[in-house]
C-alpha cells in the first residue's frame, strides 16, 4: 500500500484564518472522492469506446484520505492510497485519477474566464458540485491547483452556481442559506412550516424533531413579532431566489433588533430606496460593521440601525428626553456622533475613528449611560 499527496486545496476566508477546517467543509471534501472517480471513469470510457465498463479491479485499493490541515489559511492535504507501489507510477488508473483531478480544476477555471466548463467535464457530471463546494460562504474560496504550474482555480459560491446552472435543464440548485423572519405556519400533519421572511416572501421547510417546540412557540408569538433565524441548506431557483429550505441545521428565536438581521435588510437596499433617492450600501462595509457591532455590543443596549441617503448607517439610541447616535461612513470606517440631552441642556458632537477599538469601547459606554425609553 502506498500513499502520496494527491489533492491539496487551500481554503480562504475569515473562517479559515486560524488554519482550522469547519466540519461542514469536511463534508464537502468527502464528496470529492465520488466526483473524482466518476470523472475518471468517464475519461476511461472516452478513451476506450468499445468498453462498457472498466476492467475488474482497475480502481482496486484506491481511495482518498484527509491527512492534515496546513497553515496558510487552511491548506488541506488529501492523500491518495493505492494498492500498487509507487515504484510503478504509470499505472493507468492513477493517470486517470490525476487527469480527472486536473479536469475538475480546469472546469472551475473555465467558468471563471466565462468559458464552457464542458470542455473539461461533461454536463451530467457537473451535478457533483451540488455537494462539492456547498458549504462555501460569501467571500470564501477553495483554491484548486491547476496542472503544470502555480496557478489555481477558485471554487466560490459564484463559480459553483455557474457550474451547476450550465445545463438549462437544471431549474434549481442548493446552497447554504440563512433566513430571518417570523414563523407564519406550522403544519404538524404535513410536518412542514413556513417563514414569512423580512423581505416579505414565504419560505417553507420540513419540521425536524429538535426544532418542533421552537417552531410552535414562535408561531404562538407571531403577533408579538419575535423573529427567528434559521441556518440550513436552501433550494434556490436560477435567478438566485430562495424557494425552500431543504434542511435546517440551526434555528433560534432572536432579538427584534438583532444586528445580523438588520444588516441583511440594509444589504438588500437598492439605489433609489428612499422614494427615488438614497444610495445602496457598500456590502464589504456592512460586513465590517456587522462584525464590529456584534463584537462590541455583547453586553450593552443594541443600537437601532437605519440607512442614510448617502449610503451610510446610523446607530441610534432614543430616550424620553435624550438621543444619541453615531452616523457611520462605511467606506472610511469613521463615525460622526452626537448626543442630545434635554435634561442637562447638552448637545455634543464629535468624530470617531472606528478602526480604533477604543472608539467602540467609548460608544458602548455612552450607550450604557444613555437612559433608554424602557
Amino acid at each position, binding site marked *: 500500500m502506498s500513499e502520496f499527496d494527491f489533492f491539496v486545496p487551500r481554503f480562504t476566508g475569515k473562517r479559515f484564518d486560524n488554519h482550522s477546517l469547519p466540519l461542514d467543509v469536511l463534508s464537502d471534501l468527502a464528496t470529492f472522492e465520488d466526483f473524482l472517480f466518476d470523472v475518471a471513469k468517464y475519461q476511461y470510457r472516452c478513451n476506450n469506446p468499445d468498453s462498457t465498463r472498466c476492467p475488474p479491479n482497475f480502481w482496486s485499493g484506491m481511495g482518498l484520505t484527509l491527512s492534515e490541515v496546513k497553515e496558510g489559511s487552511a491548506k488541506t492535504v488529501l492523500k491518495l492510497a493505492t494498492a500498487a507501489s509507487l515504484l510503478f507510477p504509470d499505472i493507468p488508473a492513477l493517470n486517470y485519477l490525476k487527469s480527472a483531478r486536473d479536469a475538475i480544476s480546469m472546469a472551475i477555471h473555465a467558468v471563471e474566464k466565462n468559458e464552457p466548463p464542458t470542455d473539461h467535464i461533461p454536463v451530467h457530471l457537473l451535478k457533483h458540485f451540488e455537494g462539492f463546494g456547498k458549504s462555501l460562504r460569501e467571500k470564501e474560496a477553495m483554491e484548486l491547483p491547476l496542472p503544470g504550474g502555480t496557478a489555481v482555480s477558485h471554487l466560490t459560491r459564484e463559480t459553483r452556481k455557474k457550474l451547476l446552472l450550465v445545463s438549462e435543464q437544471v431549474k434549481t440548485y442548493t446552497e447554504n442559506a440563512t433566513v430571518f423572519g417570523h414563523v407564519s405556519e406550522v403544519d404538524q400533519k404535513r410536518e412542514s412550516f413556513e417563514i414569512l421572511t423580512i423581505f416579505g416572501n414565504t419560505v417553507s421547510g420540513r419540521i425536524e424533531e429538535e426544532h418542533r417546540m421552537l417552531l410552535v412557540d414562535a408561531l404562538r408569538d407571531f403577533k408579538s*413579532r419575535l*423573529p427567528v433565524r434559521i441556518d440550513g441548506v436552501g433550494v434556490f431557483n436560477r435567478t438566485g431566489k430562495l424557494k425552500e429550505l431543504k434542511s435546517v441545521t440551526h434555528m433560534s428565536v432572536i432579538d*427584534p*433588533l438583532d444586528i445580523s*438581521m*438588520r444588516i441583511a*435588510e440594509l444589504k438588500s*437596499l437598492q439605489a433609489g*430606496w*428612499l*422614494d427615488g*433617492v*438614497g444610495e445602496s450600501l457598500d456590502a464589504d462595509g456592512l460586513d465590517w460593521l456587522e462584525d464590529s457591532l456584534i463584537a462590541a455590543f455583547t453586553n450593552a443596549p443594541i443600537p*437601532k440601525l*437605519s*440607512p*442614510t*441617503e*448617502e449610503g451610510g448607517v*446610523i446607530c*441610534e439610541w*432614543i*430616550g*424620553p*428626553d*435624550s*438621543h444619541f*447616535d453615531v452616523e457611520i461612513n462605511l467606506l472610511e470606517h469613521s463615525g460622526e456622533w*452626537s448626543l*442630545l440631552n*434635554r435634561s442637562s441642556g447638552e*448637545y455634543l*458632537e464629535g468624530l470617531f475613528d472606528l478602526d480604533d477599538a477604543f472608539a467602540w469601547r467609548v460608544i458602548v459606554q455612552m450607550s450604557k449611560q444613555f437612559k433608554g*425609553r424602557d
Partner: protein
Amino acid sequence: MTPETMLLRQIHPMYFSKDGEILRGAFKPTNSDNGFLSVYNGDMIEPAPAVHHYREQGRKTGGVAGITVEECSRHQLPCIDDGVPFPEHATIDFSKKSPSEMKKAYKELTIYANNRGLLAQV
C-alpha cells in the same frame, strides 16, 4: 395653522426600528428637499387618510408621526401651510440652519414623535 396644529410626517419603513420606534432619519430633509421637510397639515387631513393619500402616489410609508407647530417653533423651525403640490401639504423649514443645528433640530423632533407614538400605522 395654529400652535396646536399637528403636522403629520410619513415615516419610511426603513425609519422604523423593529421594536416600533421612529428613527431620526424620518425627520431629516433629503438633499433634494433643500431644507424643507414635507408634512401634512393636520387641520386639513386625519392621519389615516394621510397614509392612504401618500400610498396612492406610489410612495412607501409605514405610518404617520405627529409634531405640533408649537414644538417646531421651540427650535426655531418655521412651519408653512403652502398647499403645494396638494392642498393639505405643509413644510417645516430647516433651510436657515447650519448642518449641526439641523441635526440637533431633527433629533428633537424624533424625541417628540416617539413620546407621542404613531398616529396611524400601515
